[in-house]
């Protein structure tokens, strides 16, 4: 690749450069706003400040406050207003400032966002994207580290996505905004500053909504995970080599729709699986994954599908969160319990 020189004499930006997930998300919003005048970004502090995680940085300045709007501080009102805007034909992209602060909007979400298309026989689809920074691991105080994906995944009518890589952050957010259905877009807070080689000029294409990706193939057991737990699982798979284990890792990416094909194929290949996520385990997303994969793969399973999840406790204070979060050791313990002698 040669280095071109622009009219101004500056070397042209290289096609690939390093970007954080937050930057890729910002670029996705920027490109969506530029591509479609119906797209409107709204939420608390998303305008002048650019969001507490700076994901909306510069958007109000570049697209005007009517396209990227600081709303009053009321989450039900924000989402409810977005419903009306979508009824008019806009494509609102709502930011909830933190996971736990989306709860006030729960009724609007469950009773309207998820149901309006169905209620009206398709007359009023709601192309709303609800961006929610979620999960722990950033030393946040109470109410700043919830993993609420199970609430949303259990609500028919919603799509639930969660990217785990910089590429996916961009590609999946663009797809979410382009979707004619409401999407809960869960952004793993602690990956906001994760970096990758990624070009805003030529963002890599990513698999569509509803597709899981095998991040690593393995022969001895399969880790099934998503969002903030993906890097932990990849690390665990690396560490497992010391034990002589060859672990596969599936990144679900999309919780609804759920890509059973990909996940089940990976589990069948190893006959053993551990589901990993951060949220409380009881009636969590991992239960669905384990139950479903067991239904699909029962006769290939050498052991029950195990789960490594957060404990069934309120999210801990920051100084104790490391004990709660699924870490490499806890994942490897579970892999070890997959009854190798059988």
């Amino acid at each position, binding site marked *: 690749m040669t280095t071109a020189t622009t009219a101004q004499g500056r070397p042209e930006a290289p096609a690939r450069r390093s970007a954080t997930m937050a930057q890729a998300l910002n670029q996705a919003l920027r490109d969506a706003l530029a591509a479609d005048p119906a797209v409107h970004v709204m939420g608390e502090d998303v305008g002048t400040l650019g969001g507490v995680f700076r994901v909306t940085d510069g958007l109000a300045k570049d697209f005007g406050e009517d396209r990227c709007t600081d709303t009053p501080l009321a989450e*039900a009102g924000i989402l*409810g207003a977005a419903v009306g*805007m979508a009824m008019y034909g806009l494509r609102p992209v709502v930011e909830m400032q933190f996971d736990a602060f989306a709860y006030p909007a729960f009724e609007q979400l469950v009773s309207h966002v998820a149901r309006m298309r169905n209620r009206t026989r398709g007359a009023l689809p709601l192309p709303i994207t609800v961006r929610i920074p979620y999960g722990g691991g950033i030393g946040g105080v109470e109410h700043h580290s919830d993993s609420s994906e199970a609430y949303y995944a259990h609500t028919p009518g919603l799509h639930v996505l969660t990217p785990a890589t910089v590429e996916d952050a961009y590609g999946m957010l663009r797809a979410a905004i382009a979707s004619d259905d409401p999407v809960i877009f869960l952004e793993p807070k602690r990956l906001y500053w994760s970096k990758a080689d990624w070009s805003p000029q030529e963002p890599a294409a990513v698999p569509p909504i509803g597709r899981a990706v095998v991040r690593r193939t393995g022969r001895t057991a399969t880790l099934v995970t998503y969002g903030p737990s993906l890097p932990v699982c990849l690390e665990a798979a690396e560490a497992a080599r010391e034990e002589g284990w060859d672990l596969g890792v599936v990144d679900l990416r999309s919780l609804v729709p759920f890509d059973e094909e990909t996940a089940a194929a990976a589990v069948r290949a190893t006959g053993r699986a551990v589901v990993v996520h951060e949220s409380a385990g009881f009636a969590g997303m991992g239960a669905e994954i384990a139950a479903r994969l067991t239904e699909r793969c029962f006769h290939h399973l050498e052991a029950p599908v195990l789960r490594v999840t957060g404990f069934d406790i309120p999210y801990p204070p920051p100084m104790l969160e490391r004990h709660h979060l699924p870490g490499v050791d806890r994942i490897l313990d579970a892999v070890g319990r997959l009854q190798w002698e059988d």
Partner: protein
Amino acid sequence: MTVLDTPAWRPRADAAPLLPDQEPYRLLGTPAAAELDPGLLRALYGQLVRGRRYNRQATALTKQGRLAVYPSSTGQEACEIAAALALGPRDWLFPSYRDTLAVVARGVDPVEALTLLRGDWHTGYDPRVHRVAPLSTPLSTQLPHAVGLAHAARLSGDAVAALAMVGDGGTSEGDFHEALNFAAVWHAPVVFLVQNNGFAISVPLAKQTAAPTFAHKAVGYGMPGRLVDGNDAPAVHRVLTDAMNRARDGGGPTLVEAVTYRIDAHTNADDATRYRDDDEVAAWRAHDPIELLEREMTARGLLDDDGRQRAADEAETLAADLRERMHADPALDPMELFAHVYAEQTPQLREQAAQLRAELAAEAEADRAQVAEPRS
């Protein structure tokens, strides 16, 4: 610059013009009534009579098992009809669950308006056709929708206003508050109509609010509050029309409280004698929206026995049509359960749809077998 110049210190609006009058606004029985347009009065009258008849017919349909439930708006027809007639052709209506009359007066097919309550689907009409949002069951949740739609229209430079309806009980919900605040901050072209009918199911006003009136809530948002006699159809129509015009012209939102009364029980399933006195009902029967209007029109020579009969006949035609069409069983397709959840079915839904399809086929097969093989 001193603190006195900073936004935190400076009042953001002049309170006085936002406060409602002490007495509900009225036209009927006042000298101003003489100026009212005869065409408007006739239109209101015809609709009021039709509306009352519709309520009666729908309630009868619940007894015949043709409707799951019906919340009648008898006694409140002036609010319902005036709301519908205050809308411009491109305006949007956001009704609450009791507002079927407003929906029908807006032009929605009277049978389609009852789909939810008949139970064959949720919203029976296409909201886009007459610009009528689905009848909202979760109270007050439709109010932020109205604000969002109005705001979107305003952003698009589109002179559309929204009229959102809510009950006295519904004002207690957080969504009411958030919607009004968003509307005021965004200067959205939306009008909120509180039908204060004295009760939320069994709960009387005194247990719902301690405010002087609901209209007084407006000042807390920085929008004007208006109080109107909700049984005075021309008065409600005037107040709402003014507010809608103001909204469309960029004047921002208005909160209107219409004082009225629910003559029937909460729904056909409710027993209102458990929580209210006949006296009170009688007092309101004596302040009936149709009679009030009849009295005025008769005095002005705009209504005679013929006109009364004509209105009654039209109402009867509506009721007969409703009765007849509601007695036909709706065509149902269970597979539709999977058709509208998403634009595109998830693999999970495809699988579940296949399961139901197989079950239905097996059922049909069994039915056929049963028909073929006569009972012994």
